[in-house]
C-alpha cells in the first residue's frame, strides 16, 4: 500500500539563542531567528523513510506565520513532496493549534498516517498528539522509536519506563515520535536548490474565540545560589566536603 503521510512541522524561536536581561530577567527576543523544532525534523525523517520503503507521498503542514517559508523549504529538501503553511499562529494555545491543523487534515482527506514530535522543545506541552487524535477520531500510537507499515496496519516500537512495547493500529492513525527514532538527514545541495523552487501553499487560519491564558509574567528564574567558585582545587574540595558532610549527617 502506498502511504499518504502527513507531517506536522513546528517552527519555534531558536531558544538556544535567547538571553535574559540580567537586570529585569526578561527574555530578549529581538532578532532571534526561527528554526524547525528538532523533533519535527525527526518526524519528517521518519515520514520520508516510510515513503522510501512503502511508496506514497509526504505532505507537511506548518501552522505558522509569514516567516515560515524557510522551514517548509527545509522540509522539502529533506524529501517532503507537498507543503501547506497556515498563517495566523499566535503561539501558546495548543487547543487552537490542534483545531486549525485537524481542520486542514480533514480537508486534505484520504490520509494513512499523521506523524509529529511527541513534545516540543520550547514549552514541552506534549498534548498535541492526543488533541489531534481526538479531533480526527483516529487511534494514537505514541512515543515511537521505530515505525513499520504493513498493508493497512501501522506498527511502532516504544520504550516506556517499565517495558518496551510493540503496538499497532489500522490506518489512519496518529504517530508521535521521540528523538531516538532517527538521525535526521542533512540534504545535499542539489536538493536544497530544488526545494527553493518548489511551490508552497499558503492559507490563512480563521481566528476563533478559544480563551487564551493571561500571562502575568515570563521572566528568568531567580537563582539564589551562593556561587563560591574555587580555582584552587584543595580549597574547593574543603568547602565542598564541609557542605556535603553538613547534609549527610
Amino acid at each position, binding site marked *: 500500500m502506498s502511504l499518504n503521510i502527513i507531517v506536522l512541522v513546528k517552527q519555534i524561536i531558536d531558544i538556544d539563542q535567547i538571553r535574559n536581561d540580567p537586570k529585569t530577567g526578561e*527574555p530578549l527576543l529581538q532578532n532571534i531567528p526561527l528554526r524547525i523544532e528538532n523533533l519535527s525534523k525527526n518526524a519528517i525523517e521518519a515520514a520520508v523513510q516510510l515513503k522510501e520503503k512503502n511508496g506514497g507521498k509526504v505532505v507537511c503542514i506548518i501552522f505558522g506565520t509569514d516567516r515560515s517559508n524557510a522551514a517548509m523549504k527545509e522540509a522539502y529538501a529533506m524529501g517532503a513532496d507537498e507543503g501547506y503553511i497556515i498563517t495566523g499562529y499566535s503561539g501558546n494555545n495548543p487547543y487552537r493549534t*490542534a483545531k486549525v491543523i485537524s481542520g486542514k487534515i480533514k480537508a486534505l482527506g484520504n490520509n494513512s498516517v499523521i506523524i509529529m514530535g511527541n513534545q516540543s522543545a520550547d514549552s514541552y506541552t506534549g498534548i498535541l498528539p492526543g488533541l489531534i*487524535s*481526538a479531533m480526527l477520531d483516529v487511534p494514537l500510537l*505514541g512515543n515511537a522509536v521505530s515505525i513499520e507499515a504493513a498493508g493497512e496496519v501501522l506498527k511502532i516500537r516504544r520504550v516506556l519506563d517499565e517495558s518496551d512495547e510493540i503496538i*499497532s493500529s489500522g490506518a489512519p492513525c496518529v504517530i508521535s515520535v521521540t528523538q531516538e527514532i532517527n538521525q535526521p538527514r542533512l540534504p545535499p545541495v542539489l536538493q536544497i536548490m530544488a526545494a527553493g523552487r518548489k511551490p508552497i501553499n499558503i492559507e490563512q487560519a480563521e481566528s476563533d474565540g478559544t480563551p487564551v491564558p493571561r500571562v502575568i509574567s515570563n521572566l528568568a528564574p531567580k537563582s539564589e545560589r551562593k556561587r563560591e567558585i574555587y580555582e584552587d582545587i584543595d580549597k574547593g574540595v574543603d568547602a565542598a566536603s564541609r*557542605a556535603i558532610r553538613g547534609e*549527610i549527617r
Partner: protein
Amino acid sequence: MKFLLFADDAKSLSGLATRFREDGEVQAVTVESEIEQCQNYGIKKLYGLKGKAFADNVSLAISGMDLQSYDLIVISSSPLGREVAGILSGKLNFPCMTEVFEISFSGGKMITKRFFFGGKTIMQEESSSKIITVTPGSFDSSPGDNTAEKETIDLGDSRVSLLEVKPKEKSSTNIENASIIVSVGRGIGKKESIESIMPLVEATHGELAGSRPVCLDYKWLSEERQVGLSGKKVKPKVYIALGISGQIQHIAGMRGAKIVIAVNKDKDAPIFQECDYGIVGDLFQVVPKLVESLRK
C-alpha cells in the same frame, strides 16, 4: 473546590493528592496496580482502571464520569498522562494548561507556573483551563487522614493492539527520591570513566545520575537516570555536577536541589552560575580528593 486527579504511578498520584486536598475534595483515577499504594493520601474516592491502559480507553473511561461535577481535572504528565490530557481536551473542548509545577487559587481564579522557552523563563499565567498537566515530582506527598473509598472501572477495548511486551528489569534506581545525587555530564569523556566516579557515589551514599547527552545520546547511563527538563526533576539535599556544562534544560531538572556543587574544567561554564560551591578543575583530580576528604 472539587478535583479529579489522574496519574498512572502511585508516587505522582500521592503527591498530587497531597497538594490538591489543601484546596478541596479530591477524587482520583489510577491504574489497578497502583491503588493500594495511593489509598492513604486524603483521596475521598479512588477509581482503579482494570485492563491494559491505552490513551484512548483511559480517556473514554474518564470522560464517562460526571466531569461537570469537578472544578478541575489534574493529570500527571507521564507519557500516558499527556496523551490522555490531549484526548480529553480535544473531546470535551476544554483548553488544557500544561506542565504546571506550582498552582494557586484565589477569588475563583487559577494561577499556574510552568517553564517556558526550553526552561529559560518561568511563565506565570491566569487561565480558565479545566484540565492541567502537572510535571511529576512537583509536589511532595504526605499521608492524609482517611482511607479512600475504592471502586474498579473496567477499561473497554482500545483501537490500539499490543503485539509484544518486553518488561525491563526492575531497577532499584529512583533518583527522584535520592537525597544525594552525583551527576555526570559530557565532561566524563567515556563510559568507562564512570567507574572512577563510583567511590564518590559510595562515600556520599548517593545515587548516580547524568545529563541528557550522557543518558540519551551516548547511552553511557540508562534513561531513568537522566536529569533535566526532558528527564527527571530532582530535589536532593546535595547535587554534585561533574563535567556538566549547565545547559538550561539541565538546570531546570535540578533547580530544586538544596545545595549544588559543580566541578568543571571550563571556568566560564554556565553551571558555575547555578551552583553554591564550584571547583574549576579536572574532575578526575577533584573526585579522588573529595572522596579522601569525606572519608576522614
